[in-house]
């Protein structure tokens, strides 16, 4: 398998969907299982071309339930693995996303979002799955979700998604959308040598003192390397039922054990929020109004902020490259220094619930700018900035 085939160094003009595939393969993804659904079809199509070229496997499964299950199997057997889908398929995947979070199985799920509810409109953007990404599965657990805002970022954040999955042993969701997936933009890919410095490779746990799951040591949570079937780095039994840090099922007579497991899984992500989250700030130093956005609305928001500045309004932007875990620390910091916050979302206000909670705590007003099934016009965000400045 030649490295130059996996890492396509150079400057390309490609769609967000294709960039996601290139990012995954460059990051070491060697298994993809999926099922056709618009607007993500180009992702499996491109994987079917690219994976065999680098010695990997692409398989079209019988449905999305089977797709995510196959990804779980591949990850357990040692491959970096991914699936992708859109709204209805994402709902079908929740069963195994919840299980993968509980069994601490690293994997990546691309969700090229379309309008919902139900079958919705298949090829227009909508960020309706923000809450589903975090709360879609049964039980209490935390996952990581990234939100690219350009084709370049569809590449970069997919690479990052694989790194985060390996590091924190968790499913990582990429929340793209129909517009981003289909829009063709410039994507620059570094030389393989440079690129590989930033890749977290799959590791195998030690033979001696092997610990299958996240455990606590001196008050700190340690995330051991992922399980690998066919090696010593596997518990004698990987139960899908609740289990302690050694993989022994928790009996219903000791609910305390279950509490410990859930807490461990949630703390692993939430307590490391500052290490996991990625944000970008624009003009926030002296801002009175902060726009907080993710994905494509962040680009529209940036234009609105610049226009506001031209008109003498001190506006700034906090762009969230990760949606989950919620960037509590970064958003609190912004809320401490501005008078009001504007949140443009392509949904009825999903992340707004969280942002508003932080704003209220800091005594700042937060304002939602809704769009459904289409991107905002810059003036829609600008007029809200002017209204609340």
């Amino acid at each position: 398998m030649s490295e130059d085939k996996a890492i396509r160094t150079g400057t390309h003009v490609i769609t967000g969907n294709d960039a996601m595939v290139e990012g995954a393969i460059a990051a070491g993804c060697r298994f993809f299982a999926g099922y056709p659904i618009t607007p993500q079809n180009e992702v499996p199509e491109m994987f079917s071309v690219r994976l065999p070229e680098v010695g990997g496997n692409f398989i079209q499964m019988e449905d999305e339930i089977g797709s995510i299950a196959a990804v779980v199997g591949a990850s357990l057997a040692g491959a970096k693995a991914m699936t992708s889908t859109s709204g209805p398929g994402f709902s079908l995947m929740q069963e195994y996303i919840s299980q993968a979070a509980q069994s601490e199985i690293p994997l990546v799920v691309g969700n090229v979002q379309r309008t919902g509810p139900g079958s919705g409109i298949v090829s227009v953007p909508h960020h309706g799955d923000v809450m589903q990404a975090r709360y879609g599965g049964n039980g209490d657990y935390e996952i990581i979700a990234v939100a690219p805002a350009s084709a370049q970022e569809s590449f970069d954040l997919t690479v990052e998604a694989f790194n985060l999955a390996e590091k924190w042993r968790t499913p990582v969701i990429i929340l793209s959308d129909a517009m981003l997936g289909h829009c063709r933009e410039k994507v620059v890919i570094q030389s393989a040598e440079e690129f590989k410095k930033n890749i977290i490779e799959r590791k195998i746990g030690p033979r001696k003192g092997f610990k299958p799951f996240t455990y606590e040591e001196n008050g700190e949570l340690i995330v051991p390397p992922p399980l690998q079937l066919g090696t010593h780095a596997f518990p004698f039994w990987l139960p899908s039922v609740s289990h302690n840090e050694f993989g022994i099922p928790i009996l219903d007579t000791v609910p305390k054990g279950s509490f410990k497991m859930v807490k461990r899984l949630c703390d692993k992500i939430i307590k490391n929020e500052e290490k996991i989250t990625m944000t970008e700030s624009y003009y926030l130093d002296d801002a009175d109004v902060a726009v907080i956005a993710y994905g494509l609305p962040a680009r529209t928001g940036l234009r609105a902020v610049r226009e506001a500045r031209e008109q003498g309004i001190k506006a700034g932007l906090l762009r969230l490259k990760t949606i989950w875990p919620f960037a509590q620390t970064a958003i609190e910091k912004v809320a401490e220094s501005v008078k009001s916050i504007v949140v443009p979302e392509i949904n009825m206000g999903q992340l707004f619930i969280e942002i508003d909670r932080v704003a209220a705590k800091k005594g700042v007003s937060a304002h939602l700018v809704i769009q459904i099934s289409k991107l905002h016009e810059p003036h829609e965000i600008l007029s809200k900035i002017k209204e609340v400045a």
Partner: protein
Amino acid sequence: MSISMLAGAERPDHPLSRYASTMHIFCAGCGYGAIAQAVTRVYAERKLDKMKYVFFTGIGCHSALPTLLPGYTVMTLHGRLPAVVTGAKLANPELKPICFCGDGDLLAIGTNHFVHACRRNLDMVLILLHNNVYGMTGGQAAPTTPTEYKGTTAPYGYLEKPFDGCELAIASGATFVSRWTSAHIKQFMNTLNKAIDHRGLSFIEVVTTCPTYFGRKNKMPEPIDLFRWIRDSAVSIKKAEGMSEEELEGKFLVGEFQKTDRPDLNTIYKEIIKRAQGD
């Protein structure tokens, strides 16, 4: 069944003494213990490599088999086993999974994954534990409950036509298909040996006892009643040839139905890589 015995679980050293401190956890008279013992014997006799011959289970009473099995086990989600194994086999072709599914598991919630695994000729041994009911959830009717028999969700008798797992496997493309019962352990072990050597999907249905639910609901409360019912309902393929349709009413066939060869999923995917790389 109860799972209170699991607390003493430890990592395997010797193939036959995984649980120095525990015993099995199935109800008295459950056929699962005998099946696990048979599999364990074959595993030990052949000195199978634990890194290669890994176990998978679905969800049901059979999920508790790892307390007896001699190798590493993955417990999947209800019905999803064939799909999980598809990913595992493609990621690591060296694995030879030995899998256990319940009849609710494989023939109801997991049917879609099952028929596609057969179609793909996925290289694994797939053992269907046919106990006529959903054991774990309390004896509800399963797609294998014989017509007119009772379950906790079929108080007036189950009137639907049951699935024949072997026919379904053959129609879907499985390359080695057989049926035995927990009253035919020797024959089962013999077929299991062949299945382990077969490259492709080896499907072995084992009709087995659930005295706690199926037996109790159908006037066969003693394990021995159910054992006899299974033994007497089983007719070998050869014997059946000389029997009329009326004589075969309420019986089922046991034996090896099909053994053919065609490329398994891994072989096909190797070919795709070859084509993509232009070799």
